[in-house]
């Protein structure tokens, strides 16, 4: 889901840079206010975890690969704004050092995986779990938080790819950037993430939440906060 350089037109990647920068600014303020000192080491570990989980490429035999992102579990454990910061830092370092995701696409990739994904995951989690802080419904909520969060991010990525031929084609109608229309890009991104990579994301989210509830339940943001 890491959009490389050259797939997005400037009229797409520049505004998305703007949006991501705005979210980073708010995230820093929120973290200052809402994240206590003792949670800072967890935030650092969360970023490390997200970096690692994205290295576990899951193959579709004979086809493509994909991976989980970890933004959902970070949002549940530390809050969505903390996830914005942790996953953004990961995506920026992946782009600069490892060429995973483009430099021009940092704004877009952060918007998809570090802004939209953690918030969608967080809301889905709260919505499904209701008042439950244990039991099957609680962990089912975590599974769908990861699964749906990743899938929504993938669909959004597909939309960003798919609008390129509409907004940036040469005089002869040949696409200048990502060449596939919405009717191909969106289903391609949606199906593989809903059916395969999202399952991985969901399982990882539920399992890690279970581990934290067993060992340090008092520090789980989404179970602690009462709204």
């Amino acid at each position, binding site marked *: 889901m*890491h959009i*490389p*350089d*050259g*797939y997005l*037109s400037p009229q797409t990647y520049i505004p998305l840079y703007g949006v991501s920068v705005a979210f980073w600014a708010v995230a*820093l303020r929120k*973290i*200052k206010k809402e*994240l206590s*000192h003792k949670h*800072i*080491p967890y*935030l*650092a*570990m969360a*970023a*490390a*975890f*997200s*970096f*690692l989980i994205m*290295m*576990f*490429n*899951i*193959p*579709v*035999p*004979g*086809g*493509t*690969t994909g*991976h989980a992102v970890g933004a959902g579990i970070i949002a549940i454990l530390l809050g969505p704004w903390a996830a914005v*910061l*942790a996953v953004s*830092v*990961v995506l920026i*370092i992946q*782009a600069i*050092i*490892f*060429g*995973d995701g*483009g*430099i*021009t696409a940092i704004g877009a990739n952060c918007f998809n995986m570090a802004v939209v994904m953690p918030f969608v995951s967080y809301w889905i989690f709260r919505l499904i779990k209701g008042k439950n802080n244990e039991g099957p419904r609680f962990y089912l909520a975590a599974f769908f938080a990861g699964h749906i969060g990743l899938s929504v991010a993938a669909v959004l*990525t597909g939309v960003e*790819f798919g609008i390129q031929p509409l907004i*940036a084609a*040469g005089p002869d109608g*040949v696409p*200048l*950037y*990502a*060449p596939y229309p919405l009717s191909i*890009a969106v289903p*391609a*991104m949606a199906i593989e993430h809903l059916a395969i990579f999202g399952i991985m994301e969901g399982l990882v989210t539920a399992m890690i939440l279970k581990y934290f509830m067993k*060992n340090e339940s008092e520090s789980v943001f989404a179970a602690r906060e009462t709204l």
Partner: protein
Amino acid sequence: MTKFQKKLWIGLIVMALLSPIGVYLPEKLGAGEAWGEWGADALEKILGYVPEGMKKIADIWKAPVPDYNFGGESASMETKIISYIVSALIGIGSVAISVYVIARLTRRHEK
């Protein structure tokens, strides 16, 4: 560092050591690039051309360790596996330190 945090860090290091699964399995099973992440030459094979705008931006940045691989495109699987582990360790170190420093900086006025 609490005992629980130490345990988590050990888990993360173990993940880093296991990370080559993410490069070995796809190659074994013949899985290619992620959808929409093809390089220019791969795209030329699929499409028959490289989009004009893409040509201009695609190589705007030369990453020091492209694809988590120190050995270049023709590297052996052994090189790729070792590169992957080293990249994982560099990666988790750099993101953890960056995030830690940023989070601490947000409260520099609180002393």
